[in-house]
């Protein structure tokens, strides 16, 4: 279809919106409620444009183009209308940019600036600013909410939870949980995807920045930090680097300069997770195939705390299917305060463990009451990628000018299999790299060890693999077709569980709560779209391929920890420190 936008000719397929056609012509139209690929509802009216022959201005995010259409995006009428829309929003907006979590990272702020709003002529009644800090992961502030409904759509359609919904009507409309409850009192899984898409400061992470600075300054605390795989592929964006810039070395250098005493890598315990979870899978398969005993299959991965809470709430009948392995974050805390503290001659009560995570649900996970197997709270504080970015600024560090530095030993050593925990399909691939070799003594038969059918942003990915050439110990698996599935975003988790309930058979299913996996986590730099997801995933694969060791069981420090401390996978010490239990939760 041919049309002109500001007299520039464009040709786009039928069904394209004016907004998308304008983007193709290099024209930016401001938006607030629109969220590419997720929500187009024409609610906020910031994207108004003039169409020749139309009486009223139209919302370009929902209006499809028509043959010969003449669109104007920058007339006086358009500018004034948009400005009025935003002034109305601002007149009801109870915010103060200087002290706001979103200062300099706020879509309302930048839209207002771009429209040249210097004065608010309307005097509206401010929204009710009720701050809900009831959950460990998130803080909501209704006074800043512009009712764009992005969070509602993400929570309902992408995550299949539906914890947030518009209530009441007209001026009294608020976006929030049922019965005006606090978020902690409803079945929110703490994934933070709402905070990831909120254009303003109405939903943000519960900040741990102050407590971490306090620990760093504390004279007798040894502050140990771990960095999750997905952080290295996104932190650079906080400092203006293009998506997909790997900043592993600079991140380590920054952490050292900030005053962290020991810099370790969650990758280490990701490798450890693969050993434990892989052996757990083989144990389940042995029970089912060799011993013909009943056992819960498929095994579901358990690294993603939002998914765990989702399963506990909505599918408690599948709790026996969840791997009993703690997530790499929690394994790290338990190991740091036992094995490492002893080795380093530290009293674990003075060891303070901080995690840097792409995730806000990790804040929830860290405070689950059972996460104290080291004899202490295993993880003391959790920072998101965004919070780390902010702390680096607070410390006055010129991030981009930093040299690359290395992690400390020994919980800083890892393989490429650990890196790919960051993206959808990665945990499965890492597990297969090890499990296949344990069963057959051979390398996984894929180029670069990448299980391509399980990679990419497709919501549900499946693969079937016939096991042949088994080692004698696993001969009972000869000829068995191993069926696996990989899903990301909880809506897809729900779909695969419904399939399983309807009789579909899988042996192993990887679930990541966030779209794209951890690289698209609720704590990553905003705004994550599919382009960014792809770039970050590419970066992660590059990190993996760049490593000498690509399989978790080849990690020499993993061999060492089993030799010196854990003894054997699924053994007594492992069971105590690295595995956990789940609880059934009420659905509200």
């Amino acid at each position, binding site marked *: 279809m041919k049309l002109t936008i500001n007299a520039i000719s464009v040709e786009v397929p039928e069904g394209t919106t004016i907004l998308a056609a304008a983007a193709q012509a290099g024209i930016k139209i401001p938006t607030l409620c629109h969220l590419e690929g997720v929500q187009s509802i024409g609610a906020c009216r910031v994207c108004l444009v003039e169409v020749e022959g139309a009486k009223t201005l139209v919302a370009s995010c929902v209006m499809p183009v028509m043959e010969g259409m003449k669109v104007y995006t920058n007339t006086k009428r358009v500018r004034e209308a948009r400005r009025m829309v935003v002034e109305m929003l601002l007149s009801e907006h109870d915010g103060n940019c200087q002290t706001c979590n979103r200062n300099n990272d706020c879509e309302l702020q930048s839209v207002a600036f771009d429209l040249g709003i210097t004065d608010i002529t309307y005097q509206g009644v401010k929204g009710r600013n009720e701050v809900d800090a009831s959950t460990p992961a998130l803080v909501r502030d209704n006074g800043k909410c512009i009712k764009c409904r992005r969070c509602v759509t993400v929570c*309902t359609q992408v995550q299949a939870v*539906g*914890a947030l*919904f*518009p*209530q009441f009507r007209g001026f009294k409309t608020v976006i929030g949980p*049922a019965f005006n409850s606090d978020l902690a009192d409803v079945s929110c899984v703490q994934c933070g995807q709402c905070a990831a898409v909120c254009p303003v400061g109405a939903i943000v992470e519960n900040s741990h920045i102050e407590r971490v600075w306090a620990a760093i300054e504390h004279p007798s605390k040894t502050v140990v930090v771990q960095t999750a795989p997905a952080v290295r592929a996104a932190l650079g964006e906080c400092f203006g680097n293009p998506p997909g810039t790997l900043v592993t070395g600079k991140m380590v250098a920054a952490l050292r300069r900030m005053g962290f005493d020991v810099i370790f890598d969650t990758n280490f315990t990701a490798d450890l997770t693969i050993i434990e979870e892989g052996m757990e899978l083989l144990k389940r398969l042995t029970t089912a195939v060799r011993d013909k005993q009943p056992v819960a299959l498929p095994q579901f991965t358990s690294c993603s705390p939002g998914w765990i809470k989702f399963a506990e709430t909505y599918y408690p009948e599948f709790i026996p299917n969840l791997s009993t392995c703690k997530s790499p974050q929690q394994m790290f805390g338990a190991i740091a305060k036992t094995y490492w503290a002893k080795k380093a001659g530290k009293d674990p009560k003075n060891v303070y463990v901080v995690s840097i995570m792409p995730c806000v649900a990790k804040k929830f996970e860290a405070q689950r009451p059972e996460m104290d197997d080291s004899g202490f709270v295993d993880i003391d504080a959790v920072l998101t990628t965004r919070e780390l970015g902010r702390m680096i600024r607070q410390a006055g560090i010129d991030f981009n000018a930093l040299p690359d530095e290395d992690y400390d030993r020994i919980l800083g050593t890892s393989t490429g299999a650990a890196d790919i925990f960051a993206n959808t399909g990665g945990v499965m691939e890492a597990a297969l790299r090890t499990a296949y070799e344990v069963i057959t003594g051979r390398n996984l038969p894929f180029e670069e060890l990448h299980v391509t059918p399980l990679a990419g942003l497709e919501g549900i990915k499946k693969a079937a693999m016939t096991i042949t050439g088994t080692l004698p110990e696993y001969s009972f698996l000869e000829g068995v077709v191993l069926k696996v599935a990989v899903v990301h975003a909880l809506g897809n988790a729900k779909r695969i569980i419904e399939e399983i309930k309807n009789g579909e058979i899988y042996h192993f299913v990887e679930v990541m709560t966030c779209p794209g996996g951890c690289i698209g986590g609720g704590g990553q730099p905003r705004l994550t779209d599919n382009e960014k997801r792809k770039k970050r995933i590419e970066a992660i694969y590059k990190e993996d391929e760049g490593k000498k060791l690509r399989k978790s069981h080849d990690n020499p420090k993993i061999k060492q920890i089993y030799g010196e401390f854990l003894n054997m996978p699924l053994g007594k010490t492992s069971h105590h420190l690295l595995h956990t239990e789940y609880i059934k939760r009420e659905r509200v």
Partner: protein
Amino acid sequence: MNLDATKLSELDAFMAETAHKTNSHSYVIAVLHKAQQLFGYLPREAMDYIAHAMNIPTAHIWGVATFYHFFNLKPVGKHPVSVCMGTACYVKGAKLVLDAIKEELRITIGETTEDGIFTLQETRCIGACGLAPVMMVGDKIYGDITPKKAVKVLAQIRKETV
């Protein structure tokens, strides 16, 4: 609060009957109406129950229930009381009448007296401007009402009800 089992089974039957309906939004409204008819208002437990039964997030049920004025979220007394706040009534002192009622019943708009007899409701103009100011109790209209008269009427009704 435990919901009455017979009423719940009636609600179940109603949901089963309408389960095939495709427009789920109007279907939710119909089910909430049924619940209100059964329980007199929409108790939180009923909304929870419906959410589970229909497999819809509770927040969505709550969103629908709060969107429409015809749903009561709190128990309603035997006699709904309201004072017209249209311009004619307002000018003729409806606000004073309302204040007197609030004081007498010790409740504000949307609330129900402890004995469950009166619920004070919000009203817009009811079109009886000739009688302004106007108070309504149930379907009955009291015109030319004064604060004193209003209190007397309510006291009388309370006596008759107990």
